[in-house]
């Protein structure tokens, strides 16, 4: 604060030309300045929308509404700010200090900020002006793409094929967008690899494998030489330099961007040789009253292609207009692929071009991951990184660019390391969130000086982690450590009703013998609970054998899956998965399954867990379906609960030439033992009859692998979002000892894991690590073994089949009535279309048939 207290005159009339993300940032920063003096801001954009988040454009295809992309609109309500949309500026008059828009609006300025961004660049190739050749850059492009695809698919009466020219980040996003529109894409890239600017050869190859797995066709080292028209004059294909012609009903160009410097050029401002308005560290152009920020500006001969530098430039100009002296310097770069379904990210000196730079690489072709760190010649300073398939390290390491790593680079990359043991404290001046340009020091100050006590509060206070979100894991670590150092307990509250973790609540309910939600909430919580804590209490009561999932007073606590004992699917119908222990089924029972599925028209498929799932059962049909299954000897499969899902196995000694133990019998024994056991999250078990591991047991929460001498047991494996191999807990156990070890492991997990925490993170975070877990579970070092055994025994002896118990109780059957006052009415909004001999839910715009059975007999639209 200035001691003299004199009011400045302020920036006066400020005009921003351009209505994109950087213009929004500028307006937001200016409005937030309390020391700015007098000002009025006019932002003039040519697009008809409010400034929106272009970074997340591809989410529009995943169902996000256009309007959801709008950037914090509050700033436009500020009386000092005017926003003009849909009216491009057509001329600048530097002498008169005015801008003129297409509709003739003339806006005088004291300070002019150019934020005109860039445009998609399309090479001059024959046929690029044909109908059906599009770009992928703006909301308008997205609308055009959707409309073209919908109209063309209707006209041709078949799914479309598409081609994307350009295999960079945006090109891959465009290809993924085409896939969500049911268009099969081919990606054509001139360079020898995908994301050629951001990835090295190894990373590019790993990415190719991953996107090919997603169903994209990839052609590298190929140029698009001509867009080919069909007989109707619309695009029909793409001719490549390899001589091949790729059939395509839509072609999307994503071949780079060019700065939009036309207005500046016409007004006589200096522009760079390769385009862009020339600016220095102050972001000022050759006219002292004019600044340029974002992708239209050329700084040191380069134009930024990311939002982070644009935001930093906006901050710099706001600061100067308010009398500050901030200057722009290039921030740490880094790129992350978004919205494509595969992970790829890189930063810094990707190709190790710095003199003496060393590359440390770890490639796992089985897990399809590739990781590389580039370090200085003494292996101390981090110069860059490439991550494909698993980018967990990206957000942790990118802020360390140009700094000492603090550990051997290979320690970060080693598969067992997983980043957990090597964790260095991030220095204060490191930029943690580059989208909003927030340093680690600012994040720490939010806790120590501004009193924030949670990640959510720090986000609101600093705006860190609010744009692309990639820094949130690191942000969480920094916030929690700072809280701990400040002596503030990191909140473990489940929700507004319970200020404690699941494990703490479990211990209290167990010790006090509480029996109902009302008792639990009266003793330890507030209010009437919510969708977070109610299922947790239900699970705890169930695990403790106090309240069964079917007990009437448990009904209001259960998630719909546990309430109706089936798995909710996207259209509101359910899937039914009967238990088939060990994946075995007799021919007679298989026939029953087939008949039930046929009679109800259900969509049938074999699941990844060796079970048969039937989809499309309406709420009101579930009891009738179960009745026939139960009569044939099937049981509830619990494929719906946070509980044991299935025990996967191989055929083992029974049939296999190589099996050394009877894995199938052990799998049946384990599945019948743990069926229905409620736990913090779903869990899965695998049993393999030999080291060939055909059951993929080490990808499961509990993996059992036969040896010549008995069984090895592994724990903490995981498929899903964060795949992980299980770790060895005990070796060469006999049958009973194996069961005991698994009992104790599961009972301990049920007791002490957080809500929705799977075994992999639970094992990883276990105090004392796997060694300590082994001592407790295998050696009974705490002397709680008998207690844990008894908890599982009580579950086993108390087990009842949930389907049968429901069928036997008329009160419970009333849950399945869809309309209280019209019990025979079924949901008239359900609609199905045929697919490969069965029927699936109709997508928006498809005309489906209300009855599944009828839908599967209809003729399928030709491919």
């Amino acid at each position, binding site marked *: 604060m200035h001691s003299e207290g004199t009011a400045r005159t302020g920036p006066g009339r400020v005009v921003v030309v351009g209505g994109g993300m950087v213009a929004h940032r500028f307006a937001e920063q200016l409005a937030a300045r309390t020391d700015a003096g007098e000002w009025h801001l006019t932002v003039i954009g040519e697009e008809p929308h409010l400034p929106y988040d272009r970074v997340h454009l591809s989410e529009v295809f995943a169902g996000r509404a256009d*309007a959801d992309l709008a950037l914090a609109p509050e700033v436009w309500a500020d009386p000092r700010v005017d926003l003009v949309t849909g009216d491009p500026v057509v001329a600048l008059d530097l002498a008169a200090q005015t801008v003129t828009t297409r509709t003739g609006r003339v806006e005088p300025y004291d300070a002019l900020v150019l934020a005109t961004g860039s445009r998609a660049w399309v090479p001059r190739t024959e046929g690029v002006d044909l109908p059906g050749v599009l770009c992928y850059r703006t909301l308008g492009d997205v609308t055009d793409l959707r409309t073209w695809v919908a109209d063309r698919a209707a006209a041709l009466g078949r799914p479309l094929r598409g081609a994307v020219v350009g295999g960079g980040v945006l090109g891959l996003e465009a290809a993924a967008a085409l896939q969500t529109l049911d268009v099969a894409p081919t990606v054509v890239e001139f360079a020898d690899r995908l994301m050629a600017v951001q990835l090295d050869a190894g990373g590019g190859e790993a990415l190719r494998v991953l996107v090919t797995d997603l169903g994209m066709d990839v052609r590298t080292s190929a140029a698009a030489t001509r867009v080919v028209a069909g007989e109707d004059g619309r695009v029909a294909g793409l001719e490549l330099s390899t001589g091949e012609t790729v059939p395509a009903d839509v072609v999307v160009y994503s071949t780079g961007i060019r700065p939009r410097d036309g207005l500046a050029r016409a007004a006589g401002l200096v522009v760079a040789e390769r385009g862009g308005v020339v600016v220095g560290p102050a972001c000022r152009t050759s006219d002292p009253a004019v600044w340029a920020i974002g992708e239209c500006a050329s700084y040191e001969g380069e134009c930024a292609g990311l939002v982070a530098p644009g935001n930093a430039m906006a901050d710099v100009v706001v600061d100067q207009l308010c009398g500050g002296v901030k200057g722009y310097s290039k921030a740490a770069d880094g790129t992350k692929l978004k919205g494509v379904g595969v992970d790829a990210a890189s930063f810094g000196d990707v190709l190790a071009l710095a003199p003496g730079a060393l590359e440390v690489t770890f490639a796992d072709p089985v897990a399809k991951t590739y990781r590389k760190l580039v370090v200085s010649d003494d292996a101390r300073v981090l110069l860059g990184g490439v991550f494909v398939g698993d980018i967990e390290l990206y957000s942790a390491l990118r802020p360390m660019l140009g700094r000492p790593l603090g550990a051997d680079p290979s320690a970060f990359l080693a598969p067992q390391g997983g980043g957990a043991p090597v964790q260095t404290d991030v220095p204060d001046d490191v930029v943690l969130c580059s989208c909003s340009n927030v340093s680690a020091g600012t994040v720490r100050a939010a806790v120590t000086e501004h009193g924030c006590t949670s990640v959510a509060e720090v986000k609101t206070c600093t705006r860190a982690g609010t744009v692309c979100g990639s820094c949130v894991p690191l942000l969480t670590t920094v916030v929690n450590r700072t809280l701990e150092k400040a002596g503030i307990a990191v909140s473990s509250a489940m929700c507004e009703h319970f200020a404690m973790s699941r494990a703490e609540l479990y211990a209290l309910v167990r010790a006090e013998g509480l029996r109902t939600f009302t008792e639990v909430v009266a003793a330890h919580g507030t209010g009437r609970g919510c969708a977070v804590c109610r299922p947790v209490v239900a699970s705890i009561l169930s695990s403790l054998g106090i309240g069964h999932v079917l007990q009437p007073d448990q009904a209001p606590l259960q998630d719909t899956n546990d309430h109706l004992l089936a798995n909710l699917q996207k259209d*509101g119908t359910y899937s039914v998965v009967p238990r088939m222990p060990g994946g075995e089924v007799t021919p007679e029972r298989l026939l029953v399954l087939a008949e039930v599925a046929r009679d109800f028209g259900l969509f049938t498929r074999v699941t990844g867990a060796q079970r048969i799932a039937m989809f499309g059962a309406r709420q009101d049909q579930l009891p009738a379906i179960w009745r026939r299954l139960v009569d044939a000897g099937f049981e509830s499969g619990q494929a719906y609960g946070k509980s044991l899902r299935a025990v996967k196995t191989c055929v083992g000694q029974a049939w296999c030439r190589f099996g050394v133990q009877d894995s199938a019998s052990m799998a049946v024994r384990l599945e019948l033992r743990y069926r229905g056991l409620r736990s913090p999250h779903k869990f899965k078990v695998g049993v393999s009859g030999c080291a060939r591991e055909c059951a993929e047991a080490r990808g499961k929460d509990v993996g059992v692998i036969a040896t010549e001498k008995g069984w090895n047991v592994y724990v903490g494996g995981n498929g899903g979002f964060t795949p992980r191999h299980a770790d060895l807990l005990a070796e060469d156990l006999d049958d009973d000892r194996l069961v005991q070890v698994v009992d104790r492991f599961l009972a301990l997990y049920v007791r002490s894991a957080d809500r929705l925490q799977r075994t992999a993170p639970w094992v990883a975070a276990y105090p004392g690590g796997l060694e300590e877990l082994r001592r407790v579970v295998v050696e009974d070092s705490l002397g709680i073994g008998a207690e844990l055994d008894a908890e599982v025994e009580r579950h086993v002896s108390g087990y009842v089949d949930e389907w049968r118990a429901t069928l036997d109780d008329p009160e419970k059957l009333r849950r399945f009535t869809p309309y*209280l006052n019209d019990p025979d009415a079924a949901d008239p909004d359900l609609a199905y279309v045929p697919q490969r001999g069965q029927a699936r839910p109709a997508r928006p715009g498809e005309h489906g048939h209300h009855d599944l059975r009828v839908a599967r007999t209809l003729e399928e639209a030709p491919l």
Partner: protein
Amino acid sequence: MTSDVVADEVRVCRLNDLLPERGSGALVGEHRIAVFRLADDRVLAVQQRDPYSGANVLSRGIVGDVGGAPTVTSPMFKQVWDLATGACLDPVGKEPVDLRTYPVRLVGDEVRVAVTP
């Protein structure tokens, strides 16, 4: 229709047909609605259609409260609404969309729901 009738009122069920703190579906003319009985035997009704998934599933959501206001959470994508006002309290990162609410009247043990024209 007499002038003092302001809405079509439909008898949906008896109070005891509803489980406390659980929803049920009902058909009121063309309207598919979700009827909820709270712990204090108040009955509230909102549209059955989940605006985010488009599926008719809201009666199958978990009932609870946010700061004392009765709520339901969609079983599909976990958005949370105030059952009394229909206001979306947690849009889970989407644009908030409120629910249509329907007036409920208890006449003896009969639950009646009105559809205003």
